[in-house]
């Protein structure tokens, strides 16, 4: 076993174990943290497969941003842990059976018979200066420009959908909104008014009460 293979197996084992933990721990917050570990290990696997940019994006976007979202959702939902556990044991055999079945299928299709080294050939080994990011950049913004722009459309739809579904402005009588335009445009005369008025002589302060006291 070469050193690279050793690293691969360690990372793959971490990924598998942490995904198993992720689906079996009770606490959803802990599950999210196991998922982070699974993402990081997977990113490592991708980097060993020489897809460095994708590995880094996986950490940046998934382990960084998506996990924050997961945690918010977990906290937002106020999940009842006892209820969540109900039926776990009862459905476990079916779940294990389905998982094993899918594993067997995947092994048949993706296993060494169809995608072994002897079939696909040795992967190209890039030298130290090779940049995977450059390769992606060269293709993404020119050859795949249509898909690239569509990705922007997808993100835009994501923004619109998120806002349409969650924003709920309270009526103005409940909350005082700050109107910045109005504040900036305000002139001194809107705030401060000079009024001409006849001088009024103040009545002398009544001293009676003081005397009373």
């Amino acid at each position, binding site marked *: 076993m070469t050193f690279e293979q050793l690293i691969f197996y360690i990372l793959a084992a971490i990924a598998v174990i942490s995904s198993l933990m992720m689906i079996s721990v009770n606490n959803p917050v802990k599950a999210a943290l196991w998922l982070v570990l699974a993402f990081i290990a997977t990113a490592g696997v991708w980097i060993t497969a020489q897809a460095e940019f994708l590995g880094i994006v996986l950490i940046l976007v998934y382990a960084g941003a998506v996990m924050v979202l997961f945690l918010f959702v977990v906290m937002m939902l106020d999940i009842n842990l006892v209820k969540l556990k109900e039926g776990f044991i009862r459905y476990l055999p079916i779940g294990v059976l389905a998982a094993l079945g899918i594993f067997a299928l995947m092994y048949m299709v993706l296993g060494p018979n169809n995608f072994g080294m002897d079939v696909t050939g040795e992967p190209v080994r890039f030298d*130290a200066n090779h940049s995977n990011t*450059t390769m992606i950049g*060269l293709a993404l*913004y020119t050859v795949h420009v249509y898909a690239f722009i569509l990705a922007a459309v997808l993100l835009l739809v994501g*923004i619109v959908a998120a*806002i349409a579904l969650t*924003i709920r*402005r309270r009526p103005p009588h409940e909350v005082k909104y700050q109107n910045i335009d109005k504040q900036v445009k305000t002139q001194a005369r809107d705030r401060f008014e000079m009024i001409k008025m006849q001088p009024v002589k103040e009545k002398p302060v009544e001293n009676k009460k003081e005397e009373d006291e």
Partner: protein
Amino acid sequence: MLENYLPILVFVVLGVLFGVGPLLMSFVLAPNKPDAEKNSPYECGFEPFEDSRMKFDVRFYLVAILFIIFDLEIAFLFPWAIVLDEIGLFGLLSMAVFLSLLVVGFIYEWRKGALEWE
């Protein structure tokens, strides 16, 4: 290419050791005599009144999802910045279109008041 990552690997392994080592040492070496009273939760000396978990406002979620979208946009900018010399004007314009679509989204969320808390 992979040899460039060797320092990072060493760094990760050392980092894990530094993080896990003290925890393990305190777990093994420190005296550990739990009893029912020590393990029971308390709030300022009282029994806890309610569950410590509470619902979060949905607005946190909105902020998080808007952040993710712009975070993804940044992820698209990295390779673009590296190859800008080679992809020329066409690449520049394709990124301009990409960004302008997200600016449309930005104007929309600004106008909708999604960036304001209240």
